[in-house]
C-alpha cells in the first residue's frame, strides 16, 4: 500500500468510503478526460476562478505572504504556482494561445501526474486567503483550491479525514460521529462537572422542546474542548437564555466548504435549517468554528433551498452585544495570565469579526497582548481547512506550516514563564495548536474564547449558602 509516493499527500479515502459520499471513483484511464470536463465547467461557471486563470502576472506578491511557502520553501506552495496546476491545464485545453504556443504561454496538457500533484498541493493549502488579501489583481487563490478540491472530489480523490467526516455527518449529524446516547452522556458529565464547581445546576440541553435558541457547537467540543462547551453553557445560564442543542445537528462545522461545495455543503445547511423549523426556535447561535461560521454567514443564504427561517448569529457577536448593552458583566481579574489571540482566518478574513473578538477578549483578561501582524493580516495556524493529518510526513508539514504562527506567539512574550494563554476560538485551530504549542515549546495553554467568558462572568455563578 505505501509504495513510492512522488508527492507528499494524505491517505486517500477508499472506494467504499467514497461511495459513502455517493461518489464512484473514476478509474485512472478516464481521469484526465473527466477532469478536463470538470475544469471547463468550473472555470466557466465561477468568475473568481476565470479571473485567477486569466489575470495573474506572476508578480510574486503572494509568495512571501503564504505561511505554507514560508514554512517549507517549496516553490509549489507559492499560491500562484498552486493555481498553475489549474491554469496550465486550462490554457492548454481551452485557450487559443495555449493551443498554438504551448509552454511559451504557460500551457501544459493535463496528465495523471498533474492530477496527483493537485491532490498533494491543494491539500497543502490552508485556504486562509492571506494571498487573496495582498493580490493586486484581486485573485483569490483560495477559490482555486476550492475548485481544485471539488474537481478531485468528483474524481473520487478525497483525504480519508475529510471523507470520514463527511460520512459521519450524513450518519449522525456531527463530524465526530457522536450518536445521541454519546451526546447526552457527555452533556450530563459536564453538567456534573459544573455542579461540582459552582453548586448550581447549569443545564446543557439536547433536543429540548420549546426552546428559543438553537446552539450549534463544534462537535470537537464534546471530545476535546470541555471548557468551550461549559463556557457557552455558563454564558446562556447567566443570561437566562432558553436554549438547546440538537442531536440532529450538533455541529458548527461544514466540511462541504472544504471538499464538496455542492451536495455536502448544501446538505449540511439544509439539515440545520430543517431542524430549526422542526424545533421552532427563534434564533440559531453558532459556536467556535471558523470555517463553519464562514459557511453560516456567507454561504447559507445562497445555498439554501428556501428563505432563511430565523436569524443566524455568532456566539461572540452575542457576547459582545450583551457586553455593550450592559446585560453581561465580566470580571477580567480572574484571567490574569499573559494572553494572546490567534485570529482564526475565517473569522477575520472572511467574516469581519476582528473587532468583536477584541471587544470580548479585553473584557475577560487583564494582560492581553496582540500578535504582530494581527487581525486580517494574521497568519494561519497551519491547520486551516482541516489538514490535520497525522501520517508522519504530513504531520511534519503541519509543524512547518505552523512555524510562522510559533514565531508570532513567541514574539508576544506571553509564554516566557510557561503560563501564557493562546486563545484560538476555532476547533480546527485548537486541534492544530494543541500539539503545535508543544512541538514549538511555546509555554502557552490553548484556550477557547468563550472558555474565558465562562470563568469571568460577574457575579460568578455560585450557590448562595
Amino acid at each position, binding site marked *: 500500500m505505501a509504495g513510492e509516493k512522488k508527492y507528499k499527500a494524505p491517505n486517500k479515502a477508499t472506494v467504499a468510503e467514497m461511495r459513502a459520499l455517493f461518489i464512484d471513483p473514476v478509474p485512472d484511464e478516464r481521469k484526465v478526460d473527466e477532469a478536463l470536463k470538470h475544469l471547463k465547467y468550473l472555470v466557466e461557471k465561477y468568475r473568481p476562478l476565470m479571473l485567477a486563470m486569466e489575470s495573474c502576472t506572476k508578480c510574486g506578491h503572494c509568495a512571501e505572504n503564504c505561511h505554507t511557502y514560508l514554512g517549507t520553501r517549496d516553490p509549489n506552495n507559492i499560491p500562484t504556482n498552486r493555481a498553475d496546476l489549474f491554469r496550465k491545464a486550462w490554457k492548454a485545453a481551452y485557450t487559443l494561445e495555449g493551443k498554438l504556443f504551448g509552454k511559451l504561454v504557460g500551457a501544459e496538457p493535463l496528465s495523471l501526474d498533474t492530477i496527483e500533484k493537485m491532490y498533494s498541493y491543494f491539500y497543502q493549502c490552508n485556504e486562509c486567503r492571506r494571498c487573496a488579501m495582498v493580490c493586486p489583481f484581486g485573485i483569490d487563490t483560495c477559490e482555486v483550491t476550492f475548485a481544485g478540491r471539488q474537481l478531485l472530489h468528483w474524481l473520487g480523490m478525497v483525504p*480519508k479525514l475529510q471523507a470520514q*467526516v463527511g460520512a459521519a455527518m450524513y450518519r449522525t449529524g456531527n*463530524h*465526530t*460521529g457522536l450518536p445521541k446516547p454519546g451526546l447526552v452522556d*457527555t452533556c450530563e*458529565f459536564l453538567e456534573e462537572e459544573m455542579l461540582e464547581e459552582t453548586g448550581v445546576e447549569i443545564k446543557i440541553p439536547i433536543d429540548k422542546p420549546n426552546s428559543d435558541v438553537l446552539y450549534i457547537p463544534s*462537535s470537537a467540543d464534546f471530545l476535546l474542548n*470541555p471548557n468551550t462547551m461549559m463556557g457557552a453553557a455558563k454564558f446562556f445560564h447567566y443570561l437566562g437564555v432558553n436554549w438547546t442543542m440538537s442531536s440532529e445537528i450538533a455541529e458548527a462545522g461544514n466540511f462541504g466548504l472544504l471538499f464538496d461545495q455542492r451536495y455536502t455543503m448544501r446538505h449540511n445547511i439544509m439539515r440545520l435549517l430543517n431542524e430549526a423549523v422542526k424545533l421552532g426556535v427563534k434564533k440559531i447561535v453558532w459556536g467556535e468554528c471558523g470555517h463553519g461560521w464562514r459557511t453560516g454567514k456567507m454561504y447559507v443564504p445562497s445555498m439554501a433551498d428556501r428563505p432563511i427561517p430565523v436569524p443566524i448569529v455568532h456566539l461572540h457577536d452575542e457576547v459582545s452585544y450583551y457586553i455593550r448593552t450592559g446585560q453581561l458583566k465580566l470580571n477580567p481579574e480572574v484571567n490574569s495570565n499573559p494572553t494572546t489571540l490567534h485570529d482564526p482566518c475565517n473569522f477575520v478574513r472572511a467574516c469581519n469579526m476582528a473587532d468583536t473578538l477584541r471587544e470580548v477578549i479585553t473584557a475577560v483578561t487583564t494582560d492581553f497582548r496582540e500578535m504582530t501582524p494581527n487581525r486580517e493580516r494574521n497568519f494561519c495556524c497551519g491547520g486551516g481547512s482541516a489538514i*490535520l493529518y497525522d501520517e508522519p510526513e504530513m504531520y511534519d508539514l503541519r509543524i512547518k506550516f505552523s512555524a510562522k504562527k510559533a514565531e508570532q506567539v513567541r514574539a508576544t512574550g506571553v509564554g516566557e514563564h510557561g503560563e501564557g494563554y493562546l486563545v484560538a476560538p476555532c476547533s480546527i485551530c485548537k486541534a492544530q495548536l494543541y500539539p503545535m504549542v508543544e512541538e514549538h515549546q511555546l509555554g502557552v495553554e490553548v484556550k477557547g474564547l468563550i472558555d474565558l467568558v465562562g470563568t469571568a462572568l460577574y457575579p460568578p455563578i455560585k450557590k448562595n449558602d
Partner: protein
Amino acid sequence: MPFIEVNGQQIEVDEDGFLVNTDQWSEEAAKVFAKQEGIDELTEDHWKVINYLRDYFFQFGIAPMIRKLCKETGFSLKQIYQLFPSGPAKGACKIAGLPKPTGCV
C-alpha cells in the same frame, strides 16, 4: 488491505492501523497493537484505560470525552500520555480496538 497477525490469524486494519471490525478485538490483538505503539508490556494501568474505553464505546457508541476518561480512570492527561505515548485518541483507542476518532481532533 493491511492486516495484523494475532495468534497466526490475520486481522484487517485500516491504513492508520486501526481495527476495521471492532468485534475482532481480543486481548492478544491489544498486545500486538501495543507493540506497534512502542509499549512492551500492558500493565494493570493500561488495562484500566483500555477496558474503560471499550465499556464506554459499547454503551454509548463513541469514545468518551478525554476529560471524562481522565476522571473515571483517575489518571491525569499527562499520565495517559505516559501510558500511551501517541495519546488517548490515536494510541489508547487503537489498542482498545475502537475506530479512529474523526473530526477536528
